[in-house]
């Protein structure tokens, strides 16, 4: 039987087209997006940094689909696999921590579309049955 994590990761990878891949490949971890996000500005909590909200999806891409991912896996340099515990931990960031305002894209020096990618990440949650029940 396919686990929830596998379902989510498969969907993450399916949703990672060359646009999303270029976002994950270009982010320089500068943190400027946090300075634009109301969730971070109003709480001061670094976990609301926009790019951080995408971390499980980014890890899935870097482990399974990115150029050199096979080589890095062979050398033991690939990122760790995504776990169900992590997906559950991230759900509030993915669903309650973004209102799709896109301010982070305006400030990002790489023009990364966080909101658009969060929408794609939610598709992975929905496919795995990990979306909040109220939805």
């Amino acid at each position, binding site marked *: 039987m396919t686990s929830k994590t596998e379902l989510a990761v498969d969907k993450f990878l399916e*949703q*990672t*087209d*060359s*646009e999303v*891949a*270029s*976002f994950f*490949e*270009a*982010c*320089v*971890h*500068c*943190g*400027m997006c*946090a*300075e*634009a996000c109301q969730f*971070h500005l109003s709480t001061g909590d*670094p*976990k609301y*940094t926009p*790019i*951080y909200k995408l971390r499980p999806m980014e890890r899935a891409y870097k482990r399974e*689909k*990115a*150029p*050199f991912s096979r080589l*890095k896996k062979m050398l033991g340099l690939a990122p760790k696999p995504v776990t169900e515990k992590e997906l559950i931990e991230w759900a509030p960031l993915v669903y309650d921590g973004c209102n799709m305002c896109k301010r982070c*894209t*305006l*400030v*990002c*020096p*790489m*023009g*990364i*579309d966080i909101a*658009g990618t969060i929408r794609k990440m939610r598709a992975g949650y929905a496919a795995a049955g990990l979306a909040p029940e109220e939805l």
Partner: protein
Amino acid sequence: MSFLNLVEGPLFTFAAAVFVLGALWRLIGIIRIGRAKDISPPKASAAAGFIKGNLRHFFPRGIFAKRTMVHIIGGYGFHLGLFMLVFFGVYHIDFLNERILGFSWPALPRWAFLLTSAVAFSGLITLWVRRISDPVMQLISDKDDHIGSWLTFLVMLSGCFALEQAHDSLRGVHMLLVDIWLIYFPFSRLMHSFTFFLSRGQSGMTYGRKGKVR
């Protein structure tokens, strides 16, 4: 074969080949994944959005300027400074002319080179200090970010030591670090020097198609 001959000769050729082939492999690898099909009717040109997205993100936005001032000053200082040092330093021009391109162009005068170095160093150090001290950057940074910063710093520092051309071994150490930097580049986040145009361009395409690149 002397140490300098090795690091400027076969090792440099090897490093340059890894740099070019690795960077191409990674760029092509990203592009060939392909964009998801957008079935909505376009309201404006996606291609124009690609260009507009690229140009627009070169300039910081006024509304965020105050909150991101450290990044803006450090980032522009470092990147513009490094670009000038690499492509307008007299020894770099000589090296590129003799070893690769076969033509040269005017170099920065010495005083301007030193001033530019100071700006580039200050920018790089500012960004790195922020990386280790700001809670957001601490949370999102990984080993690769630190290795990239330190490697670049060491290349620049050894370049300063080699500036007087006083000793072959100083130039050799600089070239060895350049070789390591070139080999590390395609596998690391240093690749943002090339991937930035894909990222800005692709979101520019998405929003350009909707007639909304701002």
